[in-house]
């Protein structure tokens, strides 16, 4: 009995110590001496991991002395996890991050510049479709290479257009065309209840809203990335906010958000065949294509003063702490290059032009629209300051929530206040 007790104690103590070790440095599979193990972190999860695994499999088949370990952390905890790992100097060799995280991670030295690697390996950076290298570039140096991306577009349900005998929207249409089309497709029953909405909009999604600002010819921040006054409170931004709010409240062609916190408003009207159009990125498209309520068409977002679009982007880079940077680059140029794109193309828009062309996606009536939009990209606000998320984003969100919730909101006053709040937060950082 006594020996059993001692044995148990020792086991508990040992397992405690061992588990303490393994939490900081994940165990690696048995590897022979010449084998190099690199770790790749991703924020994808579920089905999204399949292309990663497939690319890793292909890569390992061609490079038998390399093992790539995928470390997925999905959801909003990904950055929290990554930051903790970086602080503990235990970050993965390859890290995947999204567009607006690039400036802060890069200015804080989390990634190594790739330029020498690109030059030494003769990696042809012109293989990418237009605009896809920029989000990974800071001060002229390339830090990340593209994984996947999406601009915005307007989905439309041909069934509902046909039923109302409204012509499909075409490239080059304007905000006025959008309003007129949405009004024709908003249907009410005799007692005045809306039975079908013209367009489903992404609620108080601040980054998505930058499209409206860009199309109106405005900008949310000064070019030097320091001032919000004269930008966020400009007449162009006011026009964008007013038009957006009017679609909800004055013309009532858009359903109120179902969940202000859910990405894009949490509405399901378009998926249920209860909304004729929807402005969003490409992410839910797979589901729409197989949805029996929908006969899908996709068109560029309408123009106002400017034919504009914005890009959402994810990319891979190499951690500064990586001890296997050479091998990591080998994998990076594979996963972000042509061989990787051959796999991505079945899951997302491929970044490599030759793959997009040879697979016919560039000419596809739906996918071609998304790829074509890369020619109209305007810079997002985060590219002007690494502090966008903590200064102006909450202020802008406040404006959008206010105008959607309150039909009598004073747009100009709200924007003036937002510019002031954002400026105060920014000035405080500068102190």
């Amino acid at each position: 009995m006594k020996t059993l007790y001692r044995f148990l104690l020792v086991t508990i103590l040992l397992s405690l110590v061992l588990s303490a070790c393994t939490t900081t440095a994940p165990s690696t599979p048995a590897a022979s001496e010449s084998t190099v193990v690199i770790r790749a972190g991703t924020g994808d999860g579920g089905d999204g991991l399949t292309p990663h695994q497939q690319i890793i499999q292909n890569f390992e088949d061609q490079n038998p002395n390399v093992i790539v370990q995928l470390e997925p952390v999905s959801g909003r905890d990904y950055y929290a996890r990554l930051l903790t790992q970086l602080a503990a100097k235990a970050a993965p060799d390859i890290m995947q991050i999204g567009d607006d995280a690039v400036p802060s991670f890069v200015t804080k030295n989390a990634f190594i510049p790739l330029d020498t690697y690109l030059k030494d390996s003769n990696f042809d950076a012109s293989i990418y479709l237009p605009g896809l290298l920029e989000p990974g570039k800071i001060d002229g140096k390339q830090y990340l290479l593209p994984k996947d991306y999406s601009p915005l577009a307007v989905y439309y349900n041909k069934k509902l257009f046909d039923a109302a005998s409204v012509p499909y929207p075409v490239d080059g249409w304007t905000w006025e065309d959008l309003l007129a089309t949405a009004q024709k497709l908003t249907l009410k029953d005799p007692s005045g209840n809306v039975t079908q909405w013209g367009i489903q909009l992404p609620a108080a999604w601040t980054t998505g809203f930058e499209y409206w600002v860009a199309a109106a010819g405005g900008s949310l921040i000064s070019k030097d990335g320091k001032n919000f006054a004269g930008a966020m409170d400009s007449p162009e931004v006011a026009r964008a906010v007013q038009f957006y709010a009017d679609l909800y409240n004055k013309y009532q062609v858009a359903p109120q958000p179902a969940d202000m916190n859910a990405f894009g408003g949490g509405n399901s009207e378009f998926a249920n065949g209860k909304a004729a159009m929807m402005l969003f990125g490409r992410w839910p498209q797979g589901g729409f294509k197989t949805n029996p309520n929908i006969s899908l068409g996709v068109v560029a977002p309408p123009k106002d003063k400017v034919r504009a679009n914005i890009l959402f982007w994810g990319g891979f880079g190499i951690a500064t702490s990586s001890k296997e940077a050479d091998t990591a680059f080998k994998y990076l140029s594979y996963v972000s290059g042509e061989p990787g794109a051959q796999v991505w193309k079945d899951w997302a828009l491929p970044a490599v032009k030759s793959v997009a062309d040879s697979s016919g996606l560039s000419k596809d009536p739906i996918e071609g629209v998304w790829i074509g939009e890369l020619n109209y990209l305007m810079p997002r606000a985060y590219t002007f300051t690494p502090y966008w998320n903590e200064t102006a984003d909450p202020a802008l969100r406040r404006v959008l929530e206010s105008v959607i919730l309150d039909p009598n909101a004073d747009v100009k006053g709200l924007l003036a206040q937002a510019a002031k709040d954002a400026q105060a937060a920014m000035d405080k950082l500068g102190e």
Partner: protein
Amino acid sequence: MNDTEINLALRSLHQKEALSFYTAIAPWLVGFCLFTAGPLLISLGASFTDWDLLTNPRWIGLENYRNLATDPYFAQSIKVTLAYTAAYVPLDLVGGLLLALLVRPRLKGIGIFRTIFYLPTVFSGVAFVVVWLWMLNPNGGLINLALGWFGIEGPRWLLDPKYALWSLILMSFWGWGRSMALYLGGMQSIPGELYEAAAMDGAGSFRQFFAVTLPLLSPTIFFNLVLSMIATFQSFTSAFVATNGGPLDSTLFLVLYIYRQAFEFFNMGYATALAWVLFAIILILTLLLLRSQRFWVFYLGERSE
């Protein structure tokens, strides 16, 4: 055996006992130092620095604490947290007590009800928030559907800054089972003869409740009060999952704001300063409650003055 021998034997027994004591609590001790005391000290140190987690922390003294004064989101998050605590804690105390009284009688099958009421506290926080999201959905959610049967047009709940915090309070009713279980335990330790005596003196069930149950339950009420106050100040999951602090920052709990500063804005130094302020608030309120004990908490076996 002479005295010295006995002393020696005793001493070695003591040493042996001490050794097994420390061996036995070693797992806890090591765990406490590594995972609680260590991070605690580090976070205190970090609160005096400017630290983005990626580069080395820079010592800035009290600046983080000074910045609190001019941070509108800090003020808002304190307001929201206090409002939530002020509404939730009394509701939890009374609600839990009512539930406990309801399931107290030893009837056949009462265990099933006790289990049902307790069950939500065992569920994962995220899962039950998601269920509430469906119920609170303004278009076709269960609650507005039910209100519609009575001709009431339900509010837009989580979408309306006026109702969002109340929606979270409504959600938290599912946590009543925790205090119910504690009350039940407390009630079981009340000696039955007190009720017999009260009944003989002609006290009805109401009088019995106020003269016997309530005073003898006061230690449990006190315990629940402290526990529920501490837990409520640290509310996070419901706002993180359901509202992300919105709309219009109406549900911006302090802990949610701490998370945002730490992991969304990369201001770990400022976030730890916020966390220590939260700790100070909870500590002060807990001490105040402890001081108030002697005015209203009655322990059996103690003579009241």
